């Protein structure tokens, strides 16, 4: 076992910290969040230049062939900065799916573009009735001529408004909620018949509800083979979970540090409020929650390339721990800041809201607790 970073990894960490320091001060964050697109093209270019958009891409397609540790370092730093650019959607989810499922020609065309910052993606997998079960796909893809026709809805698709292309899960066979029969398609955001209802989210990012009104795609846009999209999707989701787990650790660390500072500086009754034992213990519980979350964030990232069963179990466990820790740390950070914690002018509330968002992404803690228990059951049987 080795929990240490290599020299290159340490450099990457410094680089991400510098990026956040220089480009993601709270005032800068507010400006970007309030802008039309809710992201900064300038920052995106900078990330491309620094090689971060290519870090996990295969070397054959202009990637740096980095692994989970690099992604974890980047995401944890982005968590601290509340970084708004669509890294998760494009580099983690989108690129993972393309690199593992797209036909060779499509990979050669698109992956280098991602690395260069010239292609942004979004992943459309949630449907309202399906809640967090991504096998509950009602959106249909009907074979027609040499391609398919997509019809149905997707909800709360993150980063869709600024994406160039969207990867969407659709049913090509099988019954409701069957894993078999789900296929993934790459669709142009501007495709005919694709309607976006764009909006802002809780954490000031951008998302959209999507209506597919007989959108035509050709067979070459199929990713991962017909009817066999679900396994690939599960893998990408676990990558997503690992990434947001690291991001959540970064955000929680900031809440932890801010609260710790506040306890030492805020005075009431003539003493720092941190001298009250009840607040000391609360702070300690926040600290423990963060350490537990950090451990499982690390674990899931290390197990991403292992056997699928182990990977899925690790992802479910991490998502539960992250969700619980984030809820406690977020709520207590507000509570211990008193009235100040309630203001929009402190970063505290914004970290808390990002953490609420992360809990919902890919299924909340409750969902993954059930999933974990079911895997346990399957093992025992």
């Amino acid at each position: 076992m080795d929990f240490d970073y290599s020299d290159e990894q340490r450099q990457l960490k410094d680089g991400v910290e510098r990026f956040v320091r220089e480009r993601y001060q709270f005032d800068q964050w507010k400006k970007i969040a309030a802008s039309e697109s809710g992201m900064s093209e300038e920052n995106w270019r900078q990330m491309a230049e620094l090689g971060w958009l290519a870090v996990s891409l295969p070397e054959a397609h202009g990637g740096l062939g980095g692994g989970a540790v690099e992604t974890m370092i980047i995401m944890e730093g982005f968590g601290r900065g509340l970084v708004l650019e669509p890294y998760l959607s494009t580099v983690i989810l989108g690129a993972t799916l393309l690199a593992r499922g797209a036909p060779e020609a499509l990979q050669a065309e698109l992956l280098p573009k991602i690395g260069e910052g010239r292609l942004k993606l979004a992943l459309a997998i949630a449907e309202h009735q399906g809640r967090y079960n991504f096998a509950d796909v009602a959106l249909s893809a009907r074979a027609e001529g040499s391609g398919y026709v997509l019809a149905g809805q997707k909800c709360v698709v993150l980063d869709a408004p600024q994406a160039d292309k969207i990867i969407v899960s659709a049913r090509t066979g099988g019954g409701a909620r069957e894993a078999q029969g789900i296929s993934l398609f790459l669709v142009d955001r501007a495709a005919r018949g694709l309607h976006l209802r764009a909006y802002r989210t809780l954490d000031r990012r951008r998302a959209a509800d999507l209506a597919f009104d007989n959108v035509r795609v050709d067979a070459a846009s199929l990713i991962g083979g017909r009817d066999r999209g679900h396994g690939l999707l599960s893998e990408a989701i676990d990558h997503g979970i690992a990434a947001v787990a690291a991001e959540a650790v970064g955000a929680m660390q900031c809440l932890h540090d801010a609260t710790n500072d506040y306890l030492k500086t805020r005075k009431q009754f003539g003493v720092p409020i941190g001298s009250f034992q009840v607040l000391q213990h609360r702070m300690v519980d926040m600290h423990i929650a963060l350490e537990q979350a950090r451990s499982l964030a690390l674990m899931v990232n290390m197990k991403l390339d292992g056997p699928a069963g182990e990977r899925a179990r690790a992802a479910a466990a991490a998502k539960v721990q992250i969700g619980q820790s984030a809820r406690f740390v977020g709520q207590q950070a507000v509570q211990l800041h008193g009235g100040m914690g309630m203001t929009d002018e402190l970063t505290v509330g914004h970290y808390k809201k990002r953490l609420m968002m992360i809990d919902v992404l890919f299924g909340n803690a409750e969902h993954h607790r059930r999933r974990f228990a079911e895997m346990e059951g399957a093992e025992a049987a």
Partner: protein
Amino acid sequence: MDLRFSEAEIAFRDEVRNFINDNLPADIRAKVRRQVHLERPEIDAWQKILFRRGWGAPGWPVEHGGTGWSVVQRHIFEEETAALDCPPQSPFGLSMVGPVIYTFGSEAQKGHYLPRIVSAEDWWCQGYSEPGSGSDLASLRTRAVVDGEDYIVNGHKIWTTQAQFADWMFCLVRTDFEVKQQEGISFLLIDMKSPGIEVRPIITIDEGHSVNEVFLDNVRVPRRNLIGREGKGWTYAKFLLGNERTGIAQVGGSKRRLRRLKEIARAEHVDGRPLIDEPSFRERLAQVEIELMALEYTNLRFLADAASGRPLGPETSVLKIRGSEIGQRISELAVEALGHYALPYELPREGMNEPPVGPEHGEGLVGTYLYGRAYTIYGGSNEIQRNIIAKMVLGL
């Protein structure tokens, strides 16, 4: 001992119920049901309806324009108004400053201020907290110095809810810097239109505007606006805090929100079944309902004690702690029930004619959750309430 309502009480309940059904404007009712933020005119409209019926001040004695209701009647009224989606009555006049005025005020003050509270002519706000004085309220530094017939007030209040709408502020000020902290505090009624007052909004994490900073720069306040005696303000302030009793547990409001939560859990689905049939969700729903039930009967027991003349002390802190925690829990579950549709967050804008994103039953819930993080902070934080109970339980 008998936990049932008497026949007279049942008749009273029906009377309240019928009155509400006949008189609550449908648009206001719909907004309350959807937890949409209400504006002053809407709250005033309902207050005026109650006032005309003689129910403007449910908690006050008859001689001051109240109903003179028994504890049980007040409980019934609170239950029914909450169950039938009536707007909450503004607490600052009715539950806070009103009782202070009729208990400690002069005849002239009673005659002038009380009727205007009941009829919704005046709105009040509470000027207690300051940047340096939150939990440690007695350390407040806003000062009032006598100058002829006036006080001249200088200072900075913060977190002042509804100061942007209020006509008056009841304010704790320091009139004596020489004596022990608590003994130098006085209770002043300040006209919010006085020159020298500036109100600045504070936007909270729900992106709403309900709290403010209030700056007082050489504000002249007539000496006749002093309540009771100079230096006794702390006593009145504590009386006021203890007097928030009935409302503080928020049983009615929590019941209404729990009902709405169940409706949502029936409408949302997991794997083709209603969320409410999902065992872990249903059990957590049951848990909070049981806690609310325990609070309801604790509340009734304490109120009965108060009615029979036993003074309530730290018991109110029990109600505050549990009431706020249960309220937060319900709103947390509501956010969870929404699934992905907890994420879109767009404030209603002027001229926006698109319907809100997501199912209608989700409207306002995430904002309520976020603002509700303050339940355990304001009115004396839950840590402070626990300190108060600790003194009682441990006999410190």
